[in-house]
């Protein structure tokens, strides 16, 4: 039963739904605890079979170590977010038992996405994930901003779906199959690639770019990030991105590896524009959540560079970067979630000012995370960037490397602007002191993790290179 974790999560999510609606005594917090346990248990199902390789349901899905690894990463991220949800004092509108259940459904969608080996199953799982995320974004239904963000996200999401379906239909019309394996066989038999295939792939790439918010398909990101409840922004900026990246990797490496020359160029454009937009766009932002949106775009551009060579090392580098990206982003968002003034959640950059005076330890943790995001050694972010740059230069893409480092200098500007606010500015009105021990420890954990990676980066390299092997087993 290799698909057991997905079945387990979906069945238990349905049970939780029943439980929450029929037993009014069960509070949203209990449901969240149960969800946490479900996530925790399902990780063991995955870990048990992590080095298996099997196609199931007639090649509808594939279970391999790459998908298992990404699933574990997603589950860890989701588990931490649900834990944030439990330990923090959330706005009243989020305190409903549907919230953790929806996260579970989104999780099922993402896990299926990662395993999908067929355009049909891919489409189905992307839709499952997106639909739950639309609901989550507009979860604060009395809040105007949240609803607006939900509508925006929904419109962009359905556009992305249309484009995806159109691309798929083109490819189906040409190949006569939606299975990745058969598309791969079809392509290896072609003497000259039909243009239609490339056009179809471009449509699919555009659709996935909308999901991972790679520029120039990033427009929705800042608005949705800002409008959505911060808890949901935390989700949006981490796990769906990882899942969509896994889809992109599988799609490009497995069936479409024959036309690497074509999609390589597209990825170059996507990554350059993302890095430029992500670094320049953030310069004038005043809202932390908007700034994090641009920071995400910038990171996405950086990660996309790793995929351009289409090699095993590239995917390894991406996996490592994704691990670091997850920890950095979760750390920063955990802090943003904790930013309250007089019990009201705030997220402006100037709210950070004077943090060092009131809470020196939190300020220190935050500074480590921000320097890590900026890619300043000796933090983890630097190691991630180093590995990707190493790969890019190995493939003689010097211009890309130069653009990457120059944009990362611009990006460093807005990270150190935050550090400036934290350390150098005087506070007019201080933030509430974080009196939540769990978030303090967690923030400390993220900071220490980012600081400690430099001592043993080999661990991550070994881990990721062992899981990416499976992707290349077929070719």
């Amino acid at each position, binding site marked *: 039963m290799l698909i057991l974790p997905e079945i387990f999560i979906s069945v238990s999510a349905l049970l939780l739904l029943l439980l929450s609606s029929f037993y009014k005594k069960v509070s949203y917090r209990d449901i969240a605890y149960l969800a946490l346990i479900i996530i925790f248990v399902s990780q063991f199902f995955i870990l048990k079979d992590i080095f298996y390789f099997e196609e199931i349901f007639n090649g509808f899905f594939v279970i391999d170590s790459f998908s298992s690894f990404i699933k574990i990463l997603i589950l860890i991220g989701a588990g931490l977010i649900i834990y944030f949800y439990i330990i923090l004092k959330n706005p009243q509108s989020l305190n409903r038992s549907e919230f953790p259940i929806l996260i579970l459904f989104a999780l099922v969608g993402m896990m299926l996405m990662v395993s999908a080996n067929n355009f049909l199953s891919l489409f189905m799982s992307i839709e499952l994930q997106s639909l739950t995320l639309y609901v989550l974004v507009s979860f604060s239904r009395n809040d105007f901003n949240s609803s607006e963000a939900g509508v925006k996200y929904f419109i962009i999401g359905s556009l992305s779906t249309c484009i995806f379906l159109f691309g798929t239909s083109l490819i189906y019309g040409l190949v006569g199959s939606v299975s990745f394996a058969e598309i791969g066989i079809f392509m290896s038999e072609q003497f000259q690639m039909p243009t239609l295939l490339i056009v179809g792939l471009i449509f699919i790439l555009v659709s996935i770019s909308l999901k991972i918010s790679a520029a120039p398909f990033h427009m929705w990101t800042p608005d949705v990030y800002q409008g959505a409840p911060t808890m949901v922004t935390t989700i949006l900026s981490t796990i769906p991105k990882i899942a969509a990246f896994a889809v992109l990797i599988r799609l490009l490496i497995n069936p479409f590896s024959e036309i690497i020359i074509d999609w390589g160029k597209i990825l170059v454009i996507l990554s350059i524009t993302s890095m430029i937009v992500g670094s320049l766009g953030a310069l004038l932002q005043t809202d932390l959540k908007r700034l994090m949106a641009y920071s995400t775009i910038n990171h996405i551009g950086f990660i996309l560079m790793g995929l351009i060579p289409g090699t095993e090392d590239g995917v390894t580098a991406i996996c490592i970067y994704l691990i670091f990206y997850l920890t950095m982003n979760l750390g920063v968002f955990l802090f943003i979630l904790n930013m309250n003034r007089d019990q009201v959640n705030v997220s402006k950059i100037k709210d950070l000012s004077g943090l*060092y005076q009131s809470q020196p330890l939190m300020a220190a943790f935050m500074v480590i995370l921000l320097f890590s995001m900026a890619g*300043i*050694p000796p933090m983890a972010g630097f190691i991630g960037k180093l590995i990707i740059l*190493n790969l890019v230069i190995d493939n003689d893409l010097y211009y890309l490397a130069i653009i990457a480092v*120059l944009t*990362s200098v611009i990006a*460093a500007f807005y990270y150190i602007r935050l*550090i400036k606010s934290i*350390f150098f500015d005087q506070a007019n009105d201080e933030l509430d002191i974080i009196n939540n021990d769990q978030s303090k420890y967690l923030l400390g954990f993220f900071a220490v993790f980012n600081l400690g990676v430099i001592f043993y980066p080999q661990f991550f390299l070994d881990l990721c290179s062992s899981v990416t092997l499976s992707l290349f087993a077929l070719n």
Partner: protein
Amino acid sequence: MLNLPILPILIILPLIGMAFVLLSPESDEFAKESKKSAIWTSSSTFLLSLYLPLNFDKSIPHFQFVNTFSWFNSDNLRFSLGVDGLSMPFVILSTFLILLCIVFIYPQQKKSMRMYLCSFLLLESFLIGTFSAIDLFSFYIFFESILIPMYLLIGFWGGERRIYSAYKFFLYTLLGSVLMLIAIIFLYQEFGTISIPKLLNSTLPFYIQVWLWLAFFSSFAVKIPMWPFHTWLPDAHVEAPTEGSVILAGILLKLGGYGFIRFNLSLLPDASIFFTPFIYFLSVVAIIYTSFIALVQNDMKKLIAYSSVAHMGFVTIGIFSANIQGLHGAVIQMISHGLISAALFFSIGSIYNRYHTKEINFYGGLNTRLPKLSILFLIFTLGSIGFPGTSGFVGEFLTLLAAYSKNTIVAFISAFGVILAASYMLLLYKKVFLGVTSDNLKKKMDDINKYEVIVYASLVCLIILFGIKPELILDYTTSSLDRITKLYPISIF
């Protein structure tokens, strides 16, 4: 001889001291406990660092005290530390100046004293790491990490425009060094190794060398700084706290010169020859142009900052003359500038602590108020001018000698820099210390205290000692520098 892993110990010791500083009680106002731990840490680091010259084999040009740690599991990516004759003096200079800074801080009172001390200890650790790294990645990691404590030092404890200056410092240096990162990765890809000793034996085609040279140049030219990349320096100096300026001028600028010798000159000799006229041009402009700018400054720190740019011009001329006198001159000039500019910034700090302004016009006839300091300042001024008998003279003389053997015109023009240095430094001395006592200085102030005496006395001793007996440094550096010049191709310039 004990086989002590001395360099890792030197790097870790300040970090342990940092923990003690952080753990000491915050309650008392002067943060006495944390200052004591900082003094203990930095003095023991300094004393331990003396282990290096005592056990150093002067005849070996290669790296000594080598320690290697596995980092990434491949054989080629290792974290290795070691010193040779070139880097060893800088390690000692770093530990020495940090110790002086902490002694200088001791009687003072500042906001967030514990963090201030921690920044210095962190800096010390990173600086030792940078100078003793013998593989490219660990060099880069330490080199970049220095930005973090320095950014905080300028931004948190600086003057009025501190935030602007901190930004400028951070972004300028980051912009320079990211290009170096690409060059480093390229070298790794090309040779499959990042160890500097192994890279020294490899040769690259000329057109690749040129690009790599420019990438390294962008980093070190900003750091040292050369004209026209120097504009961050006056801002950073003016706004940084006294001790921050001392470290900035005393050690951080030397990273640029050290990098030029270690990377541009040793690894990329053909490109170095190609770019020598370019370097000569920039250096001569730096010497003359910044000296003229220094003449008209009204801020003492800014004046010294511009003079630093001019002095570093001599260093780059010396380095790219690439003969043994030039390299010796450059190293001596860097060490002596490290001591003299540190001493000048300390003195300006002492004056500032008493009168709370750095404006030259505010002062006049300060010798009647602070007689002891005015004598010390005169010695440092003479050192900065390059007066015979001080270490400044040796450096300037050797670099000019080297330049003369390569290019007479460069030597001729840059010699004017010595005269200009004399004019702006003596003008500064005259305006501040001599003449009628200014009305602003009515208030009687205490002359230097005992902590300042320690700082100034040790600096004066060293400046004069190295002026009379530069062999003390040169003996150590000769064999390593000899090796570089022997590997260097003969140039036509």
